[in-house]
């Protein structure tokens, strides 16, 4: 009882630890996995990300040259980023915002598929 009294009085006088979130945003840690972004210019439509995704949320269409992801199914494991040979998918540190309507993200690539040597990055 007195131990708790000690603790709560200390809390009262040292002030709240609450992060004033919407007013002041804390920079996420460097290693935080937030969301995946596609750099569609680099995409060679190798379909590796589609094969590696555990939640089957990535659909790659080589014929139409589209790359699409359902962000409301993506579990942010980072497998697609790991297997991508051309750095066409990157992980950034910011989480996705809440929305009222959910829609998949579809990216379309213009022009011919780029010839990027996958060896340049060295596939694991």
């Amino acid at each position, binding site marked *: 009882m007195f131990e708790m009294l000690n603790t709560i009085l200390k809390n009262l006088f040292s002030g*709240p*630890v*609450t*992060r004033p*979130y*919407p007013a002041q*945003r804390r920079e996420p840690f460097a290693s935080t996995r937030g*969301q995946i972004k596609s750099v569609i210019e680099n995409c060679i439509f190798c379909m590796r990300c589609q094969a590696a995704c*555990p*939640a*089957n949320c990535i659909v790659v269409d080589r014929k139409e040259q589209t790359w699409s992801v*359902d*962000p*409301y*199914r*993506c*579990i*942010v494991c980072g497998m697609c980023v790991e297997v991508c040979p051309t750095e066409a998918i990157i992980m950034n540190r910011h*989480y*996705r*915002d*809440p*929305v*009222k*309507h*959910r829609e998949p993200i579809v990216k379309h690539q213009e022009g011919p598929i780029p010839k990027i040597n996958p060896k340049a990055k060295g596939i694991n």
Partner: protein
Amino acid sequence: MSLVALSRKKSPWLLHFETGGCNGCAIEVWACLTPVYDVERFGMVNTGNPKHADVLIVTGCVNARSGRVLRNLYSQMPEPKVVIAVGVCACTGGIFHDSYNLAPGADRAIPVDIYIPNCAARPEAIIDSVLHAVDLLEEKGRSYDARRS
């Protein structure tokens, strides 16, 4: 803004129901109640009782059994009310979307107003959604008043 509208915005009472995911989002919802994130700043308290709640937070994927409970809870909440689906499981089923006994998303059971993606949803995202939810509550409150009068 009228006093009523202001009050609706300032006092969203929360009901949390874990329909059956992995608990990850559920503990993040609880983390929001605790000192570091503290949603009581916005007047939010965890009521644990559908009859007192304004905001229903659903975490986890919905199966037949928990869907029934979820519909019950939703129908017991008095108007105006807002539903937030937290995490990919509540949005679409996430990694479990292919499973034999799950509905792909909580919106198959009850109407959902706000979706939070990510696995697991971060507390910051949940606070963001609460701020969206109070605006929606006020909007829904106005249309409820119009229907009532």
